[in-house]
């Protein structure tokens, strides 16, 4: 055949055909595997939430154990008003289920830039996010010892990328029962250490300074800590600051809920 393989026209046609074929193949793969991947992500989320209250689970039994310990799932808005709540079994496909609230996506799309410009000023942050219609999930759990615990998802930024975690509060709404953090791309050996137990253990039993200006602090390496702070990770200053920032920003929202009328009536 007399087609010039190196002509510009052929090159363009070849590229276009290639892109169409490859695009179709990838779209097909992604769509056909999506259900399984979503189920895996939901399992992972349950394992993490249970991890914050010190319950071990794996992928084979995550949903059963989750149903056993997490008694209620609540969604609240920025002002701390309860929007919805459910005690039904988790259905990851149900978008109105507080379990399905994608806090990471909310953070990426609106909270991140607002938090940056507000720079720790809670009133400014509230004003910036007022029209976003954000909701925040809260997981009420009961332990084997009949202790009421509240698990709060937190999302923030580390040095290289997103960091996130779950903080479990006790019934008094200010004692930290446990915490679990994770990250995507923090530096191994430095910022990445936030996921390790030596770091999360330090949060156990600490208090939130409900009356003070900052609820909780992750201090720079070696500074003396009190009941409202933990020692950050040496060499992981920016990641530690990220933990500090995401805890303060997020927990303030939940504090409004805990102190609000709806809460008092329960």
């Amino acid at each position, binding site marked *: 055949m007399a087609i010039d*393989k*190196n002509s510009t026209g052929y090159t363009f046609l*070849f590229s276009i055909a290639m892109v169409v074929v490859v695009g179709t193949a990838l779209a097909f793969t992604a769509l056909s595997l999506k259900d399984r*991947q979503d189920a*895996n992500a939901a399992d992972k989320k349950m394992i993490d939430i249970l991890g914050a209250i010190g319950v071990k689970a794996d992928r084979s039994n995550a949903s059963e154990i989750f149903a056993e310990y997490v008694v209620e799932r609540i969604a609240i808005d920025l002002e701390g008003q309860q929007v919805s709540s459910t005690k039904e079994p988790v259905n990851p496909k149900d978008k109105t289920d507080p379990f399905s609230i994608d806090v990471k996506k909310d953070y990426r799309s609106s909270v991140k830039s607002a938090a940056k410009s507000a720079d720790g000023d809670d009133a400014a942050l509230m004003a910036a996010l007022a029209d976003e219609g954000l909701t925040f999930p809260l997981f009420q759990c009961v332990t084997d010892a009949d202790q009421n615990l509240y698990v709060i998802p937190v999302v923030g930024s580390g040095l290289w990328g997103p960091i996130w975690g779950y903080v479990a509060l006790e019934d008094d709404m200010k004692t930290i029962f446990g915490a679990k953090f994770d990250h995507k791309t923090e530096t191994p050996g430095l910022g990445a250490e936030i996921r390790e137990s030596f770091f999360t253990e330090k949060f156990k039993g600490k208090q939130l300074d409900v009356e003070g200006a900052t609820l909780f602090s992750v201090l720079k390496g070696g500074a003396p800590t009190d009941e409202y702070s933990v020692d950050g990770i040496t060499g992981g200053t920016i990641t530690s600051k990220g933990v500090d920032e995401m805890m303060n920003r997020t927990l303030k929202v939940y504090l409004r809920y805990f102190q609000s009328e709806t809460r008092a009536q329960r």
Partner: protein
Amino acid sequence: MSTETVASTTKKESLFSKKNRRLLVDPLDDSNPITVQVLGICSALAITVQLQQAVIMSLSVLFVMIGGNVIVSLLRNMIPDRIRIIVQLVVVASLVIIVDQVLKAFQPDISEKLSVFVGLIITNCIIMGRLEAFALANKPGPSFLDAIGNAMGYAWILLAVSVVREVFGSGAISLPGMGQIKFLPSSWFMSEGGFYENNNLMILPPMALITVGIIIWIQRSRNQALIEEN
């Protein structure tokens, strides 16, 4: 068109000819991609802490390698020369994305542990190297064999290194779907009052390099032809 069919029938007859067998066997030893050509060494060092990760990684590379080599070989007479590297890259990248998606769906825990290294198969020099050096100039049959040979050459080093590292570093062996099988009773460990302690150095990245170095040493003392003259 008719010459193509003739060529493919003759190719079938000679698929396991001496020359084609060499395609399969050579990369295992004489031209091993890792120990002789020193390609793809980054991932070999990074994911050999556990055998199960190495197995999954090897299978992923095998799939991408075979897919890439065969597809590029089939397209070799159609690919415009000026964009051939991009075309190879697109083929490899799509295969890697498929592997990544499948792992996320069926092996979520291992996918998490392998993290970026599945995506980095795209930049694995072995794959691009074989596409450019072999598949672009050879028929699909030999390309298929060449892919298997090179992927296996990569795989056996990975498996060997990870077995050494996991046995001495964790006192266990893990296989996909079976979890970790411990060799020693936990009462033997120092933390439980015993006398044995795992060698933590084996878990750290430098030991992968040293283990690969030892394999190269053994290989070269056995196969003197590989030793360069100064």
